[in-house]
């Protein structure tokens, strides 16, 4: 007698998901806790990527706002270790260079500034007093938060603009005729306070006075100590090596030329290294979460021997049992993964909002987070699923 060929029917995809979800629905607390393990790992990774991306985005915006075309020129070291200075003509020479847009300069004085005339001489607070040209703000793009900048009208008089940190140290919060500081042995009126400067942090802890008043009252020698210049974006690299010879043709080696935006770019790199490290920690957390899922699945298989036996008696093949437990592990990890991404984005949003940044979480981080959980879930579910599939139906039913 010839019997018809026996072939197991394929399960409908919706049934595969439904049966996989059945095991999860019946043990909600355990599912929640093992999904939480995965979620913490994913949240850590998405959070690290999100925060670092938001921070990079912020630095990018700062860089583009401040410009990467600012170059500074300062006197360097001479071979004989004498104090060197830039020639007084340097500013004019640089201004005449092709590719240079604007030039300004400050010159350091030996004067000290104090809150009032009763402060001991050594308590300078590290605040430097500079003579500044009136065109300085246009070149370094710094803003005044209160008052105004030095103008042609007040550069001959005892008027001072304070950097942000300097103003805090001197306890001056408002510019005006009654805001006075003791500078170089006489009273100066604070006419303005600068906003913090990312690009030129030196200005933060400084007091800036007019060039003529510095020469007249503060024994300033008139030599610029830092020249700030903006080059055309396309000419920055061409201009940079020529600044030294132009500023001091006699001794080009005694000139330091730098590009402040390089410091911000370096900061960006440092943050990337750090976030790489944190990402590694997140990956470890994810791995631990994966072990948790594997553990949950192994226990689940042991507890559900009779269910496995019953399903085998209903006609489930080994493959279908394997698929059931594998899809259960995948669903469990997916739950954790999606939860983790939501959590990670939330952490990023809270942190970024607190820092007044724009929240940026790259799509690849979210997709990668969910993808990683699927891989982890597949690996974690593989062994328990194999075990469930290999369990003989009689043994499974006998232990009911």
């Amino acid at each position: 007698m010839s019997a018809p060929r026996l072939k197991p029917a394929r399960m409908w995809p919706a049934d595969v998901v439904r049966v996989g979800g059945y095991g999860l629905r019946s043990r909600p607390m355990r599912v929640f806790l093992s999904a939480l393990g995965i979620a913490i790992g994913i949240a850590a990774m998405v959070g690290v990527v999100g925060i670092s991306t938001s921070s990079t985005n912020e630095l990018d915006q700062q860089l583009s706002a401040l410009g990467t075309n600012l170059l500074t020129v300062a006197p360097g070291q001479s071979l004989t270790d004498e104090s060197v200075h830039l020639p007084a003509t340097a500013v004019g020479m640089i201004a005449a260079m092709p590719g240079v847009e604007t030039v300004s300069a400050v010159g350091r004085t030996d004067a000290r500034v104090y809150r009032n005339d009763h402060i001991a001489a050594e308590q300078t607070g590290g605040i430097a007093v500079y003579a500044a040209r009136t065109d300085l703000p246009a070149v370094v793009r710094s803003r005044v938060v209160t008052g105004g900048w030095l103008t042609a009208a007040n550069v001959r008089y005892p008027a001072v603009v304070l950097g942000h940190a300097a103003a805090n140290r001197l306890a001056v919060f408002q510019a005006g005729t009654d805001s006075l500081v003791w500078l170089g042995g006489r009273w100066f009126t604070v006419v303005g306070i600068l906003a913090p400067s990312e690009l030129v942090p030196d200005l933060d802890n400084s007091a800036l006075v007019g060039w003529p008043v510095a020469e007249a009252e503060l024994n300033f020698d008139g030599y610029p100590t830092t020249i700030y210049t903006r080059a055309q974006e396309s000419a920055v690299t061409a201009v940079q090596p020529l600044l030294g010879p132009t500023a001091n043709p006699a001794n080009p080696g005694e000139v330091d030329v730098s590009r402040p935006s390089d410091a911000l770019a370096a900061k960006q790199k440092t943050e990337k290294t750090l976030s790489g490290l944190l990402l590694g920690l997140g990956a470890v957390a994810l791995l631990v979460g994966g072990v948790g899922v594997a553990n949950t699945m192994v226990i689940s298989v042991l507890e559900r021997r009779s269910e496995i036996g019953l399903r085998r008696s209903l006609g489930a093949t080994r493959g279908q049992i394997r698929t059931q437990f594998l899809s259960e592990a995948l669903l469990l990890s997916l739950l954790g993964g999606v939860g983790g991404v939501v959590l990670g984005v939330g952490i990023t949003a809270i942190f970024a909002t607190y820092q007044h940044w724009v929240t940026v979480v790259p799509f690849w981080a979210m997709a990668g987070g969910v993808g990683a959980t699927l891989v982890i879930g597949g690996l974690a579910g593989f062994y328990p699923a194999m075990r469930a599939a290999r369990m003989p139906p009689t043994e499974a039913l006998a232990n009911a």
Partner: protein
Amino acid sequence: MTGPIVHLAGVSKRYGDVFALRAVDLLVERGELLAVVGPSGSGKSTMLNIMGTLDRPTSGTLRIDGHDVGGLGDRELSALRARTIGFVFQQFHLARGVPAIDIVADGLLYGGRPRGHRRDAAERALRRVGLGHRMLHRSHQLSGGEQQRVAIARAVLGDPPLLMADEPTGALDSRSGAVVMELLRELHGDGTTVVIITHERDIAASLPREVRLKDGRIERDTAAPRVAS
């Protein structure tokens, strides 16, 4: 298809040094209602496992519905169980907290039919076992007898020609047990071959055919002369 539904020829099952079944020959024709009876340790559970293709004999041949089980792989065997054999167990094996209709519908889960179709069939099967009013009750809200009737509805959902019942009344009080036995008789009346494994002599004696096992051998088979003729 014609021919016997179950045919065991010289079937033995050995666990280590212990023989659970020794060279058993048994022929079950389509549409029979029989009891496999014996004390515990007589080999009747092994008999159920082998007849139900849940386990393989150590030696001898087994044909179910014309298929030589020894030559079938796991996938083919699973398909045979899905299509040909329904199981009823002493402990019901109902998923906790799941509505009766979904439990019963799972009887065809591995038969390749869509869910809507399975639920329709489950509804009919539940009516057939007299539980039309309990469709949405969850398993733990049902009495023992009702739970066993749900299990029977699940077993016969795909109209398998062979129904194997392992101590179907073992966990029930006598009244519920009688209802379950009546149901099995009805299924037999509708054409299903029903094999009941039991240790209760009364139940066995009330059925048309009684196969008595002892120490892994058939001690007595009330139908033996007829089959032999």
